[in-house]
């Protein structure tokens, strides 16, 4: 067989089933690809021995007739999912050396289905960033480069390692997490398919918390079908997470009927931004045409509170983060900086000063401020009210439409350093993804085209809460219509 790393999950699954491929071969090919792709900086910890061991078990399981969708499929795990005995540091200096005694529910579900772990994936520190530039382990490089150029681009963030590993053929799929767009925006930047399910669909147990009311696990894969297979594996109620919801997990793959005739697709007018590149506007228009051609009805809708989404997000998320990150204090695990002759407060200050990067510190300070006595009502409480209004916007819209189509991000991938000194410019990357995060509804990003420089662009599909099936169905049709066949040049191999 030619290059096993180019197979889709669905293809590999079928070959494994027929006995034409072994999980061992698949794992070996990927372990080699991971090592060869050092220059992407996608993996910050590699687990080749575990991969081969898990692959052998998968082969035995397949032989015994116990194959599941993810059995024998090599995957990468974002560094914020706890993996027992393996590097789990959310790419922060403050968690130096931390290897948990426990496994996150999401990764455990993959292992229960027989998936194979290749290693831990790079990310923005504590998932705070949109370019993977805030990682303590250095930025991930986007496998895509502009036509005729050797310049590097950011992979997006925070799931930069997840998308780069999948786009760069050193994982067939990767776990990711989305708090304000951390799955969808990097997927768009790398020509991959990313899905963030409904808040509560996947357990947060064992996921290093950024903003608890927004954090949601999801997947990065090279196509929609693979996303359906992998998301089904990691979904489901968990008694260890009070915010996970006890409703059955549908067969997502079965939703890929290719038939959206008569379905109503909403186009929110508020997503037309001033100064947005014309080619994104054009791609969106193209997407609308594809939907029409597939027999869907296009409905113009309004999500009137959209303009408040970003400010609301940048109050709620830092507020929760400021509290969630208080546990990194040097007392029990990770980094500890002692000051000669100093006391407890000195240890806290030195540890947190050395352990957190600038972006994390900025958000802790914003969050601390908005929760302070005298400011709570004006910021946090107000933001929660606006969040409710944003959620209501979607509820109302979904009374009229089955899904919503928008661009995923306002630009294609950008160069390193281009926005890292301008937090506002960086935050604006999430303008189209944040509203769905605040409302807790499912959303995907489907690769749909290239910009003038040959960099990928994505379109976003949003669905009602718990209706990932429609998101998959529409994503599948969009994928087929877009026939996105472009590949990055494999300069990193």
């Amino acid at each position, binding site marked *: 067989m030619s290059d096993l790393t180019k197979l889709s999950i669905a293809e590999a699954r079928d070959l494994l089933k027929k006995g034409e491929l072994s999980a061992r071969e698949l794992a070996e090919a990927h372990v080699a690809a991971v090592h060869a792709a050092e220059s992407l900086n996608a993996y910050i910890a590699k687990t080749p021995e575990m991969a081969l061991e898990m692959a052998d078990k998968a082969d035995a399981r397949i032989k015994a007739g116990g194959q599941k969708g993810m059995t024998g499929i090599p995957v990468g795990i974002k560094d914020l999912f706890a993996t027992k005995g393996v590097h789990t540091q959310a790419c922060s200096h403050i968690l130096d050396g931390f290897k948990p005694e426990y496994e996150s529910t999401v990764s455990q579900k993959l292992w229960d289905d027989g998936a194979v772990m290749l290693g831990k994936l790079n990310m923005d520190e504590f998932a705070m960033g949109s370019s993977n530039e805030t990682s303590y382990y250095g930025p991930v490089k986007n496998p895509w480069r502009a036509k005729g150029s050797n310049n590097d681009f950011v992979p997006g963030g925070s799931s930069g390692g997840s998308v780069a590993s999948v786009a760069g053929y050193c994982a067939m799929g990767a776990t990711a997490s989305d708090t304000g767009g951390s799955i969808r925006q990097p997927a768009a930047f790398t020509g991959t398919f990313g899905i963030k399910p409904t808040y509560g669909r996947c357990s947060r147990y064992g996921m290093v918390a950024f903003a608890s009311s927004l954090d949601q696990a999801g997947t990065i894969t090279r196509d929609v079908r693979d996303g359906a297979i992998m998301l089904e594996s990691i979904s489901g109620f968990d008694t260890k997470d*009070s*915010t996970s919801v006890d409703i059955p997990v549908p067969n997502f793959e079965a939703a890929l009927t290719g038939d959206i005739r008569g379905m109503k697709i909403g186009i929110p007018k508020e997503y037309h931004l001033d100064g947005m590149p014309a080619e994104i506007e054009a791609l969106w228009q193209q997407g609308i045409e594809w939907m029409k051609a597939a027999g869907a009805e296009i409905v113009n809708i309004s999500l009137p509170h959209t303009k408040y989404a970003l400010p609301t997000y940048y109050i709620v998320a830092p507020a*929760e983060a400021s509290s969630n990150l208080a546990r990194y204090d040097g007392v029990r695990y990770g980094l500890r900086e002692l000051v000669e002759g100093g006391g407890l407060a000195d240890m806290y200050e030195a540890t947190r000063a050395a352990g957190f990067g600038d972006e994390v510190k900025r958000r802790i300070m914003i969050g601390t401020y908005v929760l302070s006595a005298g400011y709570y009502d004006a910021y946090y409480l107000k933001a929660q009210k606006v969040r409710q209004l944003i959620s209501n916007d979607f509820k109302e819209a979904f009374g009229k439409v089955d899904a919503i189509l928008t661009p995923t991000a306002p630009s294609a991938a950008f160069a390193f350093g281009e926005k890292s000194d301008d937090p506002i410019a960086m935050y604006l990357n999430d303008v189209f993804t944040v509203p769905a995060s605040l409302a807790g509804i499912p959303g995907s990003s489907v690769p749909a085209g290239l910009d003038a420089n040959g960099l990928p662009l994505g379109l976003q599909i949003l669905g009602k809460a718990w209706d990932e099936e429609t998101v998959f169905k529409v994503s599948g049709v969009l994928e087929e219509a877009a026939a996105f066949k472009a590949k990055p040049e494999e300069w990193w191999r």
Partner: protein
Amino acid sequence: MSKFLIQGATGDFEVVIGLEVHAQVISNAKLFSGAATEFGAEPNAQVSLVDAAMPGMLPTINAECIRQAVRTGLALGAEINKFSVFDRKNYFYADLPQGYQISQFKHPIVGEGTITLDLGDGRSKDVGIERIHLEQDAGKSMHDQHPQYTYVDLNRSGVALMEIVSKPDMTSPEEAGAYLTKLRTILRYIGSCDGNMEQGSMRADVNVSVRRAGEPLGTRCEIKNVNSIRFVRQAIEYEAQRQVDIIEAGGKIDQETRLFDPGKGETRSMRSKEEAHDYRYFPDPDLLPIEFDEAFIDAARDSLPELPDEKKARFIEDLGLPDYNASVLVAEKESCDYFEDLIAALVKKTGKDAKAVGAKASNWVTGDLFGALNKAGKSVTESPVSAEQGADLLALIEDGTISGRIAKDVFEIMFDTSKDAGVIVEEKGLRQVSDTGEIEQIIDEVIAANPAQLEQYRAGKDKLIGFFVGQVMKATGGKANPGMVNKLLKPKLDG
């Protein structure tokens, strides 16, 4: 008791007291983790990943703690909130692993209620309950284990506490003490907290302010974590006097948090209002609001035992107990249990109505038995004389086998040996003499032996009958039936 006032040089001051009691919930496990909660385990032996705030760990509510808080609210006649919310109280400390305490701020699980204090002599007073909320305890910092470092024990980290907040309705150290005593009694009755202050499963934060009569409330100081009722009384006395002294010297009270030093019997400043934390409360996004229905409340109500106030009323009404005895008995659930077992056994043995024997039995339990237990330093559950045995003894008095006087001797032997009353009476030959002929013969002998006293009696010194009774009893070794002696003696003396 007259009104409690601090007499200053410039006039009298009233004291205003409110209490925040932290009561550890009796439950199988901690509030948000499955870890055990037993007292006295090796340091850090009862710590789950959640309690240690490992990355990615999430709290999940222990339903038993919710039920216990609701039961406690119901026992205090309080409003139960079907919707309540857990908030995060953010501050840094080495023994607070999460960097925040999960507590309830805006929406507590229990609202306003009342506790009726017993102030002795049948007097009572109602003290308002402001609210009860659930929260997790912190760990313990140990500063005496190493010359340079502080050690941390997380066994208590995450243990469920009820914070029971009173209204500022108390006006003396005695009332504060009575409040704690009554609250502890109720918690123990319903089994929601064991009330062991010395083990830290119940502690009080005491808010104290003073004012001249008729003036508005003064500035209060909060004395943290006082761990015995006696210390609470001492702390209030000291703190009230300290505040009066400051005001009389022309100063003003700073709102601050203080600590009570039991060794010195004084309070000292811990932190001022300016140093107070900004806790940045906000709803914990890891937990959903707590919501339950009427059926849950009804089930909690059905699980409550008879409460002390109800029990006391029943003792007085149905069993004819004196108010004082009833109060003493209901103060401890174990005392009540003993007394009720004893009454049941006594009714069965004597065939008499409970009301006919209730008062006498209560006298014996609160007098003879408690006296002996006190002297021996034993609790009622450690009594060498069981309720069944006590009933045996009282039944022997009821049926005339022994006199009350002899019963005291028998009880002493029972207390020392745990032997049954009947056995002791037989062994020692203490059975009461009720044979008319035998008693008459002894009376005749006594009268014959004391002619001078007889003459005086007959000359009008009636009181000498007591002397003759004493002599007869002495001659029978106390075994003569005193009722019969009285009945037979008088006609003979009168001639």
